[in-house]
């Protein structure tokens, strides 16, 4: 009896899996693994929108050398098991020629052995240093998000100029916050800065007054908060309510007008290192990034009625690198990899001007950030 039960089950599962295995193979397929749901969905959502927008634009313009582009976007649910399954599906079932993503460092790290074994280039959208270093062991891996340490360097340089020496840091207990925390702790001595308080909070916590007060009581002359999503607005509101009298710095995840709307007057005076996508209209016309920033921002706004922000920019850069490679060398994973490694030089993207080389698979540094302050509900570049 149980034999029959098993056969029936097997049959059902086989059918489920095989149902769409016989799709047409005409278009060029690239894959994207993004944290569309789960704790990191604040990052994955604009990335997904960006890729859909770009794919549509490219196909409208006739595709790549006459062939349409098909992007398969998988939701990794911000979690490694799902990321691994997504990668296996994209590589083995869909036979994609390149993978964009994942959105977070942890998921990217989990995929390194898989894409390396399958010999498929992967352009991660996450910031962690370990994703592309050591480069000798990351032959197939690139990334388009600035290193966390670049954002930290930008903040610390500014503090050095202002004579701030004692800092209290607040970080969220997720991969994003943790990477920031490690960079903050590691780089502080180099800039003559002491971390006097190292406070943490959990995703979806509702009040950070305690952490802020502890930092101030430890003698901090400034607060740095590292998180994305509603928590960073709550920190801003608590900071404002406490009338702390010391400046609040946020991470590069702060760059969304939505944050300014929700925080209201509490956001006045908050400083953060932001990618240029946020302040493109304030750049001088001759800035090499201005043209693409403008066209990207405007087309994204037209389609989604919201801003792409820093994270949409990461997806833009990764996608355009793959598209450029496809146009030049065709849908061959190894050739795409070689192209990205050797031909992305002085390449103006959304996140900065890329210089990728066999020694650096990211190609961005601290100059890709501008220090930005909130004034009258809008961004202002700090000189």
């Amino acid at each position, binding site marked *: 009896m149980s034999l029959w039960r098993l056969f029936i089950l097997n049959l059902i599962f086989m059918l489920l899996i095989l149902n769409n295995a016989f799709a047409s193979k005409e278009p060029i397929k690239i894959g994207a693994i993004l944290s569309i*749901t789960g704790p990191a*969905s604040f990052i994955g959502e604009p990335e997904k929108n960006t890729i859909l927008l770009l794919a549509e634009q490219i196909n409208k313009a006739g595709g790549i050398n006459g062939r349409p582009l098909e992007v398969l976007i998988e939701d990794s649910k911000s979690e490694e098991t799902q990321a691994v399954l997504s990668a296996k599906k994209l590589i083995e079932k869909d036979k994609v020629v390149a993978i964009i993503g994942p959105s977070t460092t942890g998921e990217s790290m989990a995929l390194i052995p898989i894409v390396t074994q399958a010999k498929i280039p992967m352009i991660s959208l996450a910031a962690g240093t370990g994703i592309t270093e050591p480069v000798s062991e990351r032959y197939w891996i690139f990334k388009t998000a600035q290193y966390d340490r670049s954002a930290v360097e930008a903040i610390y340089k500014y503090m050095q100029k202002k004579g701030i020496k004692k800092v209290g840091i607040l970080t969220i207990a997720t991969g994003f916050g943790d990477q920031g925390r490690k960079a903050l702790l590691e780089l502080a001595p180099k800039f003559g800065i002491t971390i006097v308080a190292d*406070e943490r909070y959990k995703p979806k916590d*509702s009040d950070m007054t305690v952490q802020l*007060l*502890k930092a101030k009581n430890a003698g901090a002359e400034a607060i740095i908060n590292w998180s994305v999503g509603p928590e960073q*607005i709550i920190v801003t509101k608590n900071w404002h*309510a406490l009338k702390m009298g010391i400046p609040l710095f946020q991470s590069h995840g702060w760059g969304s007008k939505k944050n300014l709307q*929700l925080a209201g007057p509490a956001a006045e005076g908050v400083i953060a290192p932001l990618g240029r996508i946020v302040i493109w209209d304030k750049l001088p016309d001759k800035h090499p990034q201005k043209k693409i920033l403008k066209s990207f921002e405007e087309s994204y706004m037209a389609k989604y009625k919201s801003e792409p922000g820093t994270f949409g920019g990461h997806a833009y850069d990764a996608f355009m690198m793959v598209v450029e490679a496809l146009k030049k060398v065709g849908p061959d994973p190894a050739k795409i990899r070689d192209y990205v490694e050797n031909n992305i030089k002085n390449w103006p993207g959304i996140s900065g001007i890329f210089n990728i080389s066999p020694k650096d698979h990211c190609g961005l540094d601290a100059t890709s950030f501008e220090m930005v302050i909130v004034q009258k509900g809008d961004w202002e570049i700090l000189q």
Partner: protein
Amino acid sequence: MELFLQFFFSGLTVGAIYALIALGFNIIYNTTSILNLAQGEFVVLGGLLMWYFLEKIHLPYGVSIILTLGISGLVGLAMERLSIRPLLKTADPLLLILITIAFSILLRGILMFLFGKEPYGYPPISEGAPLIIGGAIIQRQVLWIFLFVLFTMLFLYIFFNRTIFGIAMKACAIDSLSATLLGINTSQMVMVSFILSGIFASLAGVLVTPITFVEYDKGPLLTIKGFTAAILGGLGSNWGVMAGGFLLGILESLIAGYIHSGLKDALALLLLLSMLLFKPAGLFQSSEQARLRKL
């Protein structure tokens, strides 16, 4: 002292939120002995609907609240009809709890579909700078929440002890068979309790959102915290679960302030659990009371 007071107020703020959710658990538990683990999703639903009426189509505050509560009550009704009713007669309690989890996943999906993944917020009931008491600050909205918690307690007390309908509902929880024999329509009572609890949870969401913001996937965390508070305080007793909520919030805040902010959730939980081992019927009721409440 000032510092302690501030930590304490911060704990009260968080605790009030937990207490609200814990009370929501009680409404359904008291009439049906079911634990509704979709409670957090109803809180989120309240916040999101309120945002929609207030900020998107610009209705007045009062009208928005009434519409929000009305719709949430209907969702509570839908939940009872679609998921609880078909199982009520045959299934064991575990299945009933699991079905509420399954429904919470479904509700979360619908909320994501309708509102997307962004955080939302709107102004508090009374705007203005936070109040300063003894050098420590407390947000005005928190006072509204306290007021609402007290109102809920009073309402539940009067409803379950002074109205025929409420007494009938209580009878169903204690012994549904005898209640049926006495001519009480048991399944109608279950329906009413789900509607009531949906309304209360969404009102909690309406009040909490100006402080914490709301996004579609905030529910599970709220459920876990409220669930822990409710059971530790002593499920069944309104005073108990309310105290459980405040205690959890204050403990977390004091641990974050005086010990370690990274360990606050773990230590608070550990402390409460070890207390539970000495008072297995909940911290704020004796085992006699728990037995009378038919655990």
